[in-house]
């Protein structure tokens, strides 16, 4: 459950990170690949080494989707409808990986924002990422 204050905080944070979407997204993905090697199996068709264009563009896509969703969290099911379909019928990524990436996104945010990533911001962001992941997996079955 997100309070209005938390929703504003989340939107603010993602807005401020949009200019560095590539950097944050790629960082989170690299962390996930290093910590949870099973996640790499979904990327066997791409070059996911540090600095690769595939990694950067993919990281950017993810962060921009998170930023877009955060602009109106009550409308997540509408905003994410195309991504829901893609993940359910085409990508079919096991949803456990959403949790793994969410954790790595939090770590990436913490490294980037340092003391500004307060416990309150962390709690709000964790709740948002959980909600985002849940909506993303809604059409799986």
């Amino acid at each position, binding site marked *: 459950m997100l309070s209005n204050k938390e929703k504003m905080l989340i939107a603010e944070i993602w807005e401020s990170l949009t200019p560095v979407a590539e950097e944050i997204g790629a960082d989170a993905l690299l962390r996930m690949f*290093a*910590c949870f090697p099973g996640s790499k199996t979904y990327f066997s068709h791409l070059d996911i080494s540090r600095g690769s264009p595939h990694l950067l563009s993919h990281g950017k896509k993810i962060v921009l989707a998170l930023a877009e969703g955060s602009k109106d969290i009550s409308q997540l099911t509408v905003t994410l409808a195309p991504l829901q379909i893609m993940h359910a019928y085409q990508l079919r990524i096991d949803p456990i990986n959403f949790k793994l990436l969410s954790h790595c996104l939090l770590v990436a945010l913490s*490294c980037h924002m*340092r003391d500004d990533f307060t416990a*309150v911001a*962390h*709690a709000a962001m964790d709740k948002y990422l959980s909600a985002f992941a849940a909506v993303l997996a809604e059409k799986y079955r």
Partner: protein
Amino acid sequence: MVEWTDFERDTIKDIFSRIKYDVVGPAAFARCLVVYPWTQRYFGGFGNLDNAAAIKGNPMVSKHGTTIIQGLDRAVKNMDDIENTYTELSVLHSEKLHVDPDNFKLLADCLTIVVAAQLGKEFTGEVQAAFQKFLAVVVSALGRQYH
């Protein structure tokens, strides 16, 4: 027995030599109580845990946070036998404190994020992987004496 690479050993020792125990311990524990409020169920005697500010300023929270990280230090000093190092602590958490072992992972995640904030860019993906492996071994050892 857990196999540690040289990189993992060096990374763990390096991290724990650089972080301030009386800052990181309390910060990680307080963060856990804020981000996962149901963990407060084990700390009814700790006084005011009403909001993030109260938790952060609570002296019992700080003290316990330091105790926790000092406990982790024992694992750092005994990386080749973490399981036996934690036998008593595991029994304590299971039989006396009745803590659901899933909570250990929540605290471990909060500690990872606090250490990430401390180390910034130096907390690379590889360093994170080593740190998380270490914490996973600790969490597993703490859960071992639950029956």
